[in-house]
């Protein structure tokens, strides 16, 4: 039996290639603009790690063909409650557990709502997003210390270092990769994303997987929330609010189809998140101003997706 040809593998590598191009561009522009590129790498890690964590977990949800827009708000609520727990107990471990626990509860509500009542998950998460954002405001009101909830910076500073964050990310990715490739869960999830009817008729329990997926992704959210506090211990109503959209962009940037299915990859999330990190460094070095900057960012995003799409074009318009 033959092997896959190089050509057939291109779509798998296109996004990684995109990341490499961005890194190259980063170094070139950095050199021209006389930037501190070494520090920039640190900045990229700092700024991408939370998105990478949340997105890596979210790959499970996206693989199933679902679409979760409430991830940012969930991260925000977890972080706020984590911070409040820390302020109440003074224990980082409690804070960590609360972050994860809250995310798990939210994920469980999300997925069981969707699977018990057969709701379209996207709309469910739209509703969840507005509830969670409103809840953040309510939490800040309860906390009663102005517009923020604060953890003492010096208490979390020891954790605010690259090795800690990277090891957390690597550990989580390893866990996800393990579940995704070495356990049946990943295969089954991909199958559901590819053809839910066939998956059901092959004896796969869709509801169970939906719940597992949201629990795994909840762990990512919890870790993301924890690192959000570690990175910037002053939280407000908009904390982590951009993560929801960033995750979608990262996953797509990383070469995974938004519709999920067999072409889903765990590493898409990291590749995408870091691509975004480098892109945002490049944009900041170019100093183009908010409007033009965003236009070019959008154009590059579409271009990368277009190239990564490879030869998957049909006579019919994609839906």
């Amino acid at each position, binding site marked *: 039996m033959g092997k896959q040809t190089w050509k057939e593998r291109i779509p798998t590598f296109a996004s990684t290639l995109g990341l490499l*191009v961005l890194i190259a*561009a980063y170094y*070139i*522009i*950095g050199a*021209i*603009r*006389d*930037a*501190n*590129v070494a*520090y*920039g790498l*640190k*900045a990229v890690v*700092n*700024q991408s790690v*939370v998105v990478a964590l949340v997105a890596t977990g979210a790959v499970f949800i996206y693989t199933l063909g679902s679409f979760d827009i409430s991830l940012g708000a969930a991260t925000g609520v977890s972080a706020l409650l984590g911070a409040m727990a820390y302020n109440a107990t003074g224990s980082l471990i409690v804070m960590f557990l609360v972050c994860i626990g809250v995310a798990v509860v939210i994920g469980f509500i999300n997925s069981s709502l969707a699977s018990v009542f057969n709701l379209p998950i996207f709309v469910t998460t739209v509703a969840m997003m507005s509830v969670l954002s409103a809840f953040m*405001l309510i939490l*800040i*009101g309860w906390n*009663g210390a*102005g*517009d*923020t909830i*604060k953890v003492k*910076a010096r208490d979390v500073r020891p954790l605010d270092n690259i090795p800690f964050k990277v090891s957390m990310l690597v550990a989580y990715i390893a866990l996800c990769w393990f579940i995704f490739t070495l356990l049946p869960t990943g295969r089954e999830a991909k199958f559901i994303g590819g053809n839910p009817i066939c998956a059901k008729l092959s004896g796969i329990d869709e509801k169970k997987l939906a719940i597992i997926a949201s629990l795994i992704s909840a762990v990512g959210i919890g870790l993301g929330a924890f690192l*959000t506090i570690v*990175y*910037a*211990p*002053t*939280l*407000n*109503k*908009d*904390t*982590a*609010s*951009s993560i929801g959209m960033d995750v979608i962009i990262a996953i797509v940037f990383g070469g995974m189809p938004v519709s999920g299915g067999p072409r889903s990859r765990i590493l898409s999330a990291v590749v995408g998140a870091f691509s975004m990190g480098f892109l*945002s*460094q*490049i944009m*900041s*070095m*170019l*100093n*183009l*101003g*908010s409007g033009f900057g965003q236009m*070019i960012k959008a*154009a*590059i995003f579409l*271009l990368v997706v*277009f*190239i990564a799409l490879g*030869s998957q*074009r049909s006579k019919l318009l994609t839906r």
Partner: protein
Amino acid sequence: MKNLKRTLSMALCLILMLTLTCVPAMAAGSVKIGVLVSDATSSEALAFRAYYTEYIAKAYDVEFIYSDELTDAAGEKSSIENFIVNNCKAVISFSSFDRPAQIEQCDAAGIYYAVATGTLTDEQYEEYKDYEYYVGAIGPSMDIEFQTGYDMAAYYIDQGVTRFGMFGGGVPYYVDMHIYRAAGMLTAMVEKGGEGANYKGADNAGAIIGQIYADGGIDTGKIGNLELVAYVGGYDFNDAWFGKLAQMVGTEGIEAIITVGSGVDVLGGFVAGSGVKLATVDSFTPAMGEAMDSGILDYMAGKFAASIGPIFAATYDAIQGSPIRDSEGCALALGQGFWVATDSEQFQQYSAVDSSNTDPAYTREILDQYAAPGVSFEDFAAFVSQYSFDEIVTLKK
């Protein structure tokens, strides 16, 4: 066909990258200063930005690198990281989610840090005043914010207005600046509302501020012989919210609407032709001028665009190696207030000085006296304190 598409897209990608690298390469070389902003679109923010990027940048050969519109402390930290990557020599901050973190981050990285709007709290100042890289803060303190609100309400009460509407902007989000302005307004009403006037039982500034923080909002009702007949807060921009605003303007017997900010943007359309007086805190832009001309806007307190000139001068001094410190070697903490226009003529006068990109309120000639080595703290403090319109006009002469 497919190959063509692919080559085309690759080529496009390459060209894009190349152009991207070439265009800004020319600008490299000058001193870079990072600017943190949590608001990129209000007219005040835009006026500030124009003053820096279109006047100061040319006059002093500095390049300002602006952050995105920040929404949280994590964004501030990321932006400062980006400034460090770009080898910025200093950061000027208009964003206040976590000031202490900003100061510490800049200090650790060895770049100067200055606050351009608002001030530190007293405890914060005590903690950071000795930091080598903390330049200081010039801008309205919370007291000045409070006073601005107070003056606005007092202006109308003195004119005999008794029924008020209020727009609270960021009050439901616990934005300090807005809460202090609102508290100032309520305090004026309590003080001038006659015997026994109080706001929900609170009858002094401290209690009122506490009450607002506790509620996350403001309640309508009688304050002595005055009455707050309507209140809207937040920036929801949905149908219900616009409805509330329209409803407020249409409230029976309402005479004036005092706002903590963005009054014309959110209420202008409703106030037009209604006869209700509108007061706000904003900036001296042509759009506001038109609103004042047409009678929509009745009272405006505003920071003039060049009011951020002195903090630049201080930062520039620091970069040049001679930071301005007070007699005890501490960082700057200087107050600066608003200009208030209550009629069109006055507004135009202010605006003429303020909106020019070639001859702003603080020109290079003026700033040069302070953006130079060896400026004494006393001289500088005196210069900053002369912020009123008349004083500046004198200065310019």
